[in-house]
């Protein structure tokens, strides 16, 4: 392919000026005339019946404009998953009982925050505590407290997937033994695989909940116009479609009358994908009062009442031949789901599907269950499924290699799939940079000189991961518009949410490359559900491959229109023309040409006023109508996979058990880096986030209460913790990606965590079966080893 002008360069972000001057308006910065402030009263009980709620004193407090409880939102249900098999079950405000500490039980709108807080204190609630259960395995035992104990959903309720066109009606059922999700996927015969194996190994890990810890807390501003019936909302979010769908479904406002306005979003990492109670409560209160309402969650509520990542107990049994050929694998998962399903059914599926493009395992069984517990819900976090499974699978790979006397790099390379492979679900590996990722990080890190040779207390580890490039999820398409402006510049309209990951800048680069423009020649209208087309946004890392690609296709459409007019003006064939710097010229005679502004005028004058508007759209997995089966894993999942190999080098302080990560090397296959600086930033980001996951991040509970719901007790990595990070582009351009590009925002995190875990083992020879690798666990492990 020819040299690129704009693509594959590390140019500044499109939102630079707003972000360095404080002009960027986040949800919390929105102020509207006569705006009210809302607060939510949260349950102090993990499991209790609500006997009575008395709001009379709060209602009488001067300045209070509305007080609502579960009676006002009776019957409203929401959830991330709302399929025929898994109808959603979370009430907007708790009705007859509370199921976790932090669940909403009432909400207040008042003239200022102090008054709203004071009103919360005046609400009297009589609770009758009932036995609670916090451990998923306890929850599944006979006789355990039943967290739901009622029909889900209410009879006659249509689930979201029915609204989105799936013919099957939601089943109505009463969860038994708190089981709220299950998965059973398989191919080949894992038992036969084990029978053929020379060596079998089985291990069990525990991966805890962590917090997304986006710097901007969750929040909503809603403004309802009672005369027009329009509801404007400003949210901290990852895509407007799901949000406006749920606000529409719960509040009964037509979806076309809900406008999600553009806001800057202060980080997300999966933790702002699903709709939340506060995002329904704020519009509810605005409609009730006829005034704008602002509802921003304090940091502790972000921890206790939105969502954390998904906790899993992971059991893996693997059968291997002496020569290192993997012949069978059986995975069993148990998820501590929380009081409502969250994205656990998705995660149980992804634990398999995110890893299936990596190793060729002929016989495989993948089982999992999610159990309701009296804790907050759990949700996707940056590569979920992959993040949890990679630690387990990749550390076991090292132990198998050690037991069989195999080189861990060669053992992995031997079992990798090949480019062009068709997976059991029929996904095709049209691009497969993983072997190259491994080879490049191994070389860059000087692995061969270091592995097992670094001396006491030092180690080096390798792990690999994969990631989807979008999947079937509502609204199943991304649309985009590129229109010509009077002066020959263009305006790009794109719906994808920009929360820092850079799709707006990179899509401008795609459009600029295609049209021979510079990024400065592109005006941008983004993230507003009324101004932009229907957009899938970035679910399961489909941002680049689906949504950004729609922008490129719109530019291609406009390009053809421009060339057609120019050909007419120049009396040339379209094939003989090229465009650069807002001008079309004749390839053979570059001096001869016409400017874009002239082309626009000509088009308007001679072609019935056609103002030159390009349209583009892109569907994730075009071959399938809807979505793969979460419980059986059948059906196509995604159109391309991204890959990462990570090597980490660590040193361990034997006195304290504390791990210091010295250096992380990441080899990444993102197809093609569209913005090299943004890509580096995504990899550095995941290196540091993954280090936190590996070493110290864990949301801790005591009897259902989150005990570290702040940034003092819940540490995230700080500037001084950061190791040296080397990022290596090992891309294999995908034939279906825009200029070959694939995702880069989620894949690496899992590999980084796995590589640190393996490096710590290399340094200590202590097997630690749970994350994070707290100094205490390492210290105890070393002490036990010394005793033995």
């Amino acid at each position, binding site marked *: 392919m020819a040299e690129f002008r704009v693509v594959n360069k*590390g140019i*500044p*972000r499109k*939102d*630079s*000026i*707003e*972000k*360095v*001057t*404080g*002009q*960027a*308006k*986040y949800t*919390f*910065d929105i*102020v509207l005339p006569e705006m009210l402030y809302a607060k939510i009263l949260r349950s102090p009980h993990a499991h209790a019946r609500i006997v009575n709620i008395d709001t009379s004193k709060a209602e009488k407090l001067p300045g209070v404009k509305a007080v609502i409880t579960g009676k006002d939102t009776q019957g409203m249900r929401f959830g991330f998953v709302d399929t025929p098999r898994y109808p959603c079950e979370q009430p907007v405000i708790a009705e007859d009982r509370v199921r976790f500490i932090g669940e909403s039980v009432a909400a207040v709108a008042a003239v200022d925050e102090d008054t709203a807080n004071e009103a919360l204190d005046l609400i009297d609630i009589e609770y009758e505590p009932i036995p609670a259960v916090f451990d998923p395995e306890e929850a599944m035992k006979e006789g355990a407290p039943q967290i739901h104990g009622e029909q889900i959903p209410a009879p006659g309720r249509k689930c979201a997937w029915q609204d989105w066109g799936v013919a099957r009606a939601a089943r109505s059922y009463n969860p038994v033994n708190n089981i709220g999700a299950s998965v059973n996927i398989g191919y080949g015969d894992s038992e036969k695989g084990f029978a053929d194996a020379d060596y079998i190994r089985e291990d069990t890990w525990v991966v805890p909940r962590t917090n*997304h*810890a*986006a*710097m*901007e*807390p969750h929040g909503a501003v809603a403004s309802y116009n009672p005369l027009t019936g329009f509801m404007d909302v400003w949210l901290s979010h990852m895509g407007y479609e799901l949000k406006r769908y749920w606000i529409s479904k719960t509040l009964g406002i037509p979806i076309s009358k809900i406008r999600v306005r553009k806001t*800057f*979003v*202060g*980080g*997300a*990492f999966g933790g702002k994908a699903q709709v939340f109670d506060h995002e329904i409560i704020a519009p509810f209160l605005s409609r009730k009062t006829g005034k704008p309402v602002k509802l*921003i969650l*304090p*940091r502790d509520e972000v921890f206790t009442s939105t969502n954390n990542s998904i906790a899993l107990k992971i059991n893996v049994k693997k059968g291997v031949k002496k020569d290192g050929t993997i012949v069978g694998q059986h995975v069993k998962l148990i998820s501590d789901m929380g009081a409502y399903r969250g994205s656990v059914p998705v995660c149980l599926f992804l634990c398999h599907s995110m890893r299936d493009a990596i190793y060729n395992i002929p016989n495989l069984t993948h089982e999992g269950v999610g159990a309701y517990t009296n804790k907050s819900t759990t949700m996707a976090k940056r590569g979920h499924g992959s993040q949890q499974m990679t630690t387990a699978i990749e550390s076991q790979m090292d132990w198998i290699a050690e037991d069989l006397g195999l080189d861990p790099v060669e053992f992995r390379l031997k079992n990798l799939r090949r480019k062009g492979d068709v997976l059991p679900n029929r996904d095709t590996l049209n691009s497969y940079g993983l072997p190259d990722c491994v080879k490049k990080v191994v070389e860059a890190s000087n692995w061969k000189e270091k592995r097992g040779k670094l001396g006491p207390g030092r180690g080096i580890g390798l792990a690999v991961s994969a990631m989807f490039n979008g999947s079937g999820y509502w609204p199943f398409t991304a649309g985009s518009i590129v229109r010509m402006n009077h002066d020959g510049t263009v305006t790009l309209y794109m719906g994808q949410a920009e*929360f*820092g*990951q*850079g799709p707006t800048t990179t899509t401008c680069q795609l459009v600029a490359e295609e049209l021979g423009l510079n990024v400065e020649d592109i005006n941008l209208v983004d993230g507003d559900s009324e101004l932009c087309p229907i957009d899938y946004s970035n679910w399961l890392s489909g941002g680049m491959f689906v949504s950004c690609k729609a922008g490129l296709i719109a530019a291609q459409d406009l390009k053809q229109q421009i060339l057609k007019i120019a050909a007419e003006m120049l009396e040339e064939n379209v094939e003989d023309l090229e465009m650069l710097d807002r001008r079309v010229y004749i390839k053979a005679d570059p001096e001869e040409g016409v400017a874009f502004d002239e082309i626009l005028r000509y088009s308007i004058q001679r072609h019935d006023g056609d103002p030159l508007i390009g349209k583009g759209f892109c569907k994730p997995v075009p071959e399938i109508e809807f979505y793969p089966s979460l419980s059986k894993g059948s059906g196509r999942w995604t159109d391309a996979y991204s890959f990462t190999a990570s090597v980490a080098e660590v040193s361990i302080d034997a006195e304290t058990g504390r791990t210091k990560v010295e250096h992380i090397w990441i080899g990444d296959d993102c197809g093609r880096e569209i*913005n090299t*600086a*943004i890509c*580096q*930033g995504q990899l*550095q*980001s*995941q*290196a*540091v*986030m993954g280090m936190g996951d590996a070493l110290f991040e864990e949301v801790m509970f005591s009897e259902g209460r989150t005990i570290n719901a*702040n*940034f*003092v007790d819940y540490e*995230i*990595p*700080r*500037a*001084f913790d*950061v190791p040296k*990070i080397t990022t290596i582009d090992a891309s294999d351009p995908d034939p279906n990606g825009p200029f070959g590009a694939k995702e880069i925002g989620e894949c690496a995190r899992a590999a980084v965590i796995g590589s640190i875990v393996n490096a710590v083992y290399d340094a200590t020879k202590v097997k630690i079966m749970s994350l994070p690798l707290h100094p205490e666990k390492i210290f105890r492990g070393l002490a036990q080893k010394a005793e033995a």
Partner: protein
Amino acid sequence: MELAKKLIKVTVNGEPRELWIKQNITLLDLLRDHLGLTGAKMSCISNSCGACTVILDDMAVKSCSVLAMQVDGKEVLTVEGLAKDSKLHPLQQAFIEHVAFQCGFCTPGKLMSAKALLDENPQPTEEELRRDMEGNLCRCTGYQKYIEAIMDVAQHPDKYGAKEG
């Protein structure tokens, strides 16, 4: 209970102001709610993330943990006051060119911390810089590009335009 309001005099981004305020509000509330300066952000409200950092008489402070009454008679500089006469501060320019930020939420706080540091110690070592920036959390970037950008300004003061005052 309604608290009595008090008058304070404070210079914000070079503009002298006289404001009647409740005694229990923070400097962050003062900036955001009274002056409409929303560059400083609320994130943790526990003095632990640095998103609300502003400069108070040459010192970087977390404005969520300073009472507004404490700034009476003092000078406050926020991110909105960093660019002068439509010209970006060298740190702002360096952040842009290094593509240092992602979501941008912590960026105003980082700029103010970095400015206070460089004003006091124009040639920090990378270790000094990383230690000094410990109070400014970022979840997006992994810090690397922020550190590179600030070091670039420190090592090449003229590269992004002469430093003001």
